């Protein structure tokens, strides 16, 4: 930039030339080829395109070409296309209050034009001829006639050719390419009804047909394994008044698909991808107890709501928004999500174990495929349906059709093995109604007895009756046959979950039964800890632990939850103190209660190393089943790992 001494001669402040203004704006909007791709594709979508072709060269640095079949532009439009703050999407300030288009700021084209060699060719429906205009680093040419198909083609070549400083920040071609693809795939997921084709150096990388729905698009983008495991989410605030209020649709993946990053946790608000803190918290809350810490769930969620209830004009790349009624929304969304998450198949599939085993045996050197990333779709659009019957887990979920209709069918997959009672059951006691209706049992029986509407598929589904014999391995793991395979259960984790849920259920029903102790058990603690306990005695009592301060450094425990079979009083009290200390909240705060119950459950459960009889194992399994959520321990470790026949066949090289 200019040095201060030079500028001082003609006055300190002066207006910047428009080119510089645009270049500065470009710094905000255009960081890398992927940003160009995003702006151009969004423009194409706003133009009403149904098919969009994106051609990239050298990761988009040398060329980004977006060809659409949208409404196109006339000569008048083309004259303004590279002018700053010129847009077709807004006309009056009022329009800002209900933005339905993806773009609206009118900065993108001007910014791109100032830092690359651009050319726009466009033909409107009623024009016989296309027109073109060029912008080379801010030098805008004249609109001239040209040949071209209906719609608009935008070419951006040599990005940052006139701003070498920025060019230096670009990464390797493969990195830039994957960022571009990332953007395109995200947009493709958000826009059902629009087809996308992506090529790189003339090689076709990714495509989706306009007719593909969200699930088919996920399958195409991330592979069949993920797509087949997804559970639909559907929530409508006013189901009887479509288009009014909040509507949530989409899919959640079982916790085992979780990742370190949030790259597959996608929220689409009215067709716009966003990373919003509030929505992120919704998902985190929805997966609470199902996911180990520091793992990010995989979910594809679409939120439709009145544009007036949300402000999208708070962030230059529009990744963040502001909701008018965030608080109210939060609760509703979390509930809808939790129900769906609880229905996912949480068990670790044996397949992944077999995979890792095979990998170990074959050693390194196997081509490293990027997991889940489908680069070149093989064959027809609905591959993945032709899977062997054995791999549709336990045959309980009617295998979803690869294309069409799947998004709407929330009720599929709710019968049969996967804990059907979970949804209703959890709600039952989460609602803290305290009524002693027994939803889990009722639900369970109902689903088992009456085949649902999809009867012909259901009729073939095998029901799992938890039949033995069971094999106990190392007094720690339980093995049993399940229809179409076998499963390995971690006895401690399962029992811990069971104890925890029962304690929680007791608590929500307002009655933890307390078994009094004949002789109070004394626990020595630090003085500060005793004081802390002393403050919260009453609240702790509601958790079923009846204790009192006995001396300056001693606590007397008079009673413990009757459910707890092998009380380790000292451990429990220290856990209690530490939890209260760590959370810094009174012990009847929701999250403290959960943590305390977790620990209690953990301390009093069957341990690894306890030998169990067949009857005990059966009782454990069936009681856990009755409860519904028996797939993870309260610390979200899985309780079971399943192998199906296909896994075994692969392991034994039978196929």
């Amino acid at each position: 930039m200019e040095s201060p001494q030079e500028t001082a001669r003609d006055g300190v402040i002066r207006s910047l030339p428009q080119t510089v203004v645009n270049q500065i704006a470009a710094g905000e909007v255009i960081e890398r080829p992927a940003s160009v791709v995003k702006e151009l594709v969004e423009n194409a979508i706003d133009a009403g395109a149904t098919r969009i072709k994106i051609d990239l060269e050298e990761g988009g640095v040398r060329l980004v070409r977006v060809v659409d079949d949208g409404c196109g532009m006339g000569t008048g439009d083309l004259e303004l296309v590279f002018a700053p703050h010129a847009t077709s999407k807004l006309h009056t300030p009022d329009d800002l209050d209900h933005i339905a288009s993806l773009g609206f700021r009118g900065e993108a084209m001007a910014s791109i034009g100032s830092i690359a060699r651009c050319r726009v060719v466009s033909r409107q429906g009623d024009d016989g001829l296309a027109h073109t205009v060029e912008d080379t680093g801010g030098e805008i040419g004249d609109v001239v006639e040209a040949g071209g198909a209906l719609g608009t083609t935008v070419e951006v070549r040599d990005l940052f050719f006139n701003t070498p400083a920025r060019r230096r920040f670009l990464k390797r071609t493969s990195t830039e390419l994957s960022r571009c693809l990332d953007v395109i795939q995200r947009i493709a997921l958000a826009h059902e009804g629009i087809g996308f084709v992506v090529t790189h150096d003339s090689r076709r990388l990714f495509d989706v047909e306009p007719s593909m729905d969200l699930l088919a698009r996920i399958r195409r983008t991330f592979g069949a394994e993920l797509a087949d495991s997804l559970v639909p989410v559907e929530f409508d605030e006013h189901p009887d008044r479509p288009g009014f209020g909040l509507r949530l649709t989409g899919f959640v993946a079982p916790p085992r698909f979780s990742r370190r990053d949030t790259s597959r946790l996608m929220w689409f608000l009215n067709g716009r991808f966003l990373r919003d803190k509030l929505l992120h918290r919704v998902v985190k809350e929805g997966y609470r107890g199902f996911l180990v810490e520091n793992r990010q769930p995989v979910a594809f969620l679409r939120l439709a709501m009145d544009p007036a209830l949300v402000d999208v004009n708070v962030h230059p790349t529009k990744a963040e928004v502001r909701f008018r009624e965030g608080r109210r929304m939060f609760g509703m969304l979390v509930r809808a999500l939790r129900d769906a998450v609880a229905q996912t198949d949480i068990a670790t599939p044996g397949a992944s174990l077999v995979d890792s085993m095979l990998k170990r045996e074959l050693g390194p050197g196997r081509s490293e495929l990027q997991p889940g990333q489908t680069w070149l779709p093989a064959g027809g659009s609905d591959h993945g349906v032709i899977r062997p019957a054995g791999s549709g887990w336990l045959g309980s979920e009617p295998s979803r059709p690869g294309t069409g209709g799947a998004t709407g069918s929330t009720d599929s997959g709710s019968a049969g093995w996967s804990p059907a009672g979970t949804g209703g059951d959890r709600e039952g006691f989460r609602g803290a109604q305290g009524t002693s209706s027994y939803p889990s049992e009722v639900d369970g029986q109902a689903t088992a007895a009456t085949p649902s509407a999809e009867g012909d598929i259901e009729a073939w589904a095998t029901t799992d009756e938890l039949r033995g014999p069971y094999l106990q391995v190392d007094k720690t793991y339980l093995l049993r046959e399940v229809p179409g395979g076998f499963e390995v259960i971690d006895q401690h984790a399962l029992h811990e979950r069971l104890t925890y849920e029962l304690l929680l259920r007791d608590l929500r029903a307002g009655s933890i039964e307390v078994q009094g102790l004949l002789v109070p058990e004394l626990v020595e603690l630090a003085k500060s800890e005793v004081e802390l306990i002393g403050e919260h005695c009453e609240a702790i009592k509601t958790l079923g632990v009846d204790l009192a301060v006995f001396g300056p450094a001693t606590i007397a425990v008079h009673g413990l939850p009757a459910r707890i079979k092998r009380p380790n009083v000292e451990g429990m009290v220290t856990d209690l103190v530490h939890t209260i200390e760590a959370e810094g909240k009174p012990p009847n705060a929701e999250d403290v209660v959960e943590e305390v119950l977790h620990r209690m459950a953990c301390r009093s459960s069957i341990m690894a190393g306890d030998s169990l009889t067949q009857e005990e194992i059966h009782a454990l399994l069936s009681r856990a089943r009755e409860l519904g959520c028996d797939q993870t321990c309260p610390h979200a470790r899985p309780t079971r790992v399943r192998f199906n026949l296909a896994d075994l066949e692969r392991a034994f090289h039978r196929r």
Partner: protein
Amino acid sequence: MKVLCNREQLREGLAIVNGVIPTKSTRPAIENVCLVATENALELVGTDLEIAIRYRLDDVKVADTGTVLIPARVANEFVRDLSEETVSIDSGGDNCVISSGGDRVELVTIESDEFPVVARFQETHSYPLLAETFNKQIHRTSFAAAREPGRYAMHGILIEIEEGRLRMVATDGRRLAVTSTVIDCPEDAAHRAIVPTKGLQMFSRILSDPMARVRISFEETQFCLKTDNAEIYARLIDGEFPKYSQVVPAEGACKVEADASLLVNKLRLASTVTSADARAVRLVFTEDHIELLARATGRGRATGQMDASYQGSEVDIAFNPDFLIDGLKQCESDRVHLEFNDRTSPGKFQLGQDYTYVVMPITIDT
């Protein structure tokens, strides 16, 4: 060593001693039974280092005295299946032959000095009593001792001699059984020992003749019992036993008398709906009547009714039915007496003369 003995006596002795001998141990020598032949007797000795037992066979002919260690399980199984009247045991070098009629087994022996030293019965602090009396005290208490891990001292039964009485107490922290009986001892005799429950159950096994006179003895680290042909030693638990005298309530405000076996019946009936780990049966007492109520979230509810003698206003208290049934099964008369103050204080059951059972209630916080 060379001995001739009666098969039946040998079989019984080996079976009893085998009850103590561990099948797997870090010290292989104690997986053996130690045979000691003296001038006129054969002694079988076994131990798991917590409990030790000496069993003496008198009706034997000893040709050569000596000591030999043989694998306990093999010897026991071989002798059990013999059919001839007499059995000969003959050891020399590093093997031992057990034979009877045409059947024989040759066992490899190991050095007898690897076997731990088992003490002899000390008469100093020993007191005589009837086998039946002692056995009864064990049965009256052992069911109430702790079985779950933790609370080490409660895994034993407290045996006390005080003011001319022998008292035994067992508790798992939630219920407590206490029983006492007169014992022939000097007035100033006072002893106290916590004996592992498992050990005492072993004691009970060798008290086969109810009318036999036996002696018990308190030593520094072990508690011993001597019968005519056996001695058994249990290592004491070193720990603090709850002060039972503070636990047993003096007198309760509510007094109930009921048919013991009928009450067991009704408790079973009501507890059918409760699950294995959450059991509470509420007893509601109205004039001359008990109503039993049980319910379990997610399962259902059950009620039972029975007559009982009770005077006063309506009161209720909830217990773990397993605890009550365990105790009521020991009740020595047809009628059981229950006393308690309120729903949070312990219930005191009189199960027989000098036999009290105290159970802490379950409180349901609503």
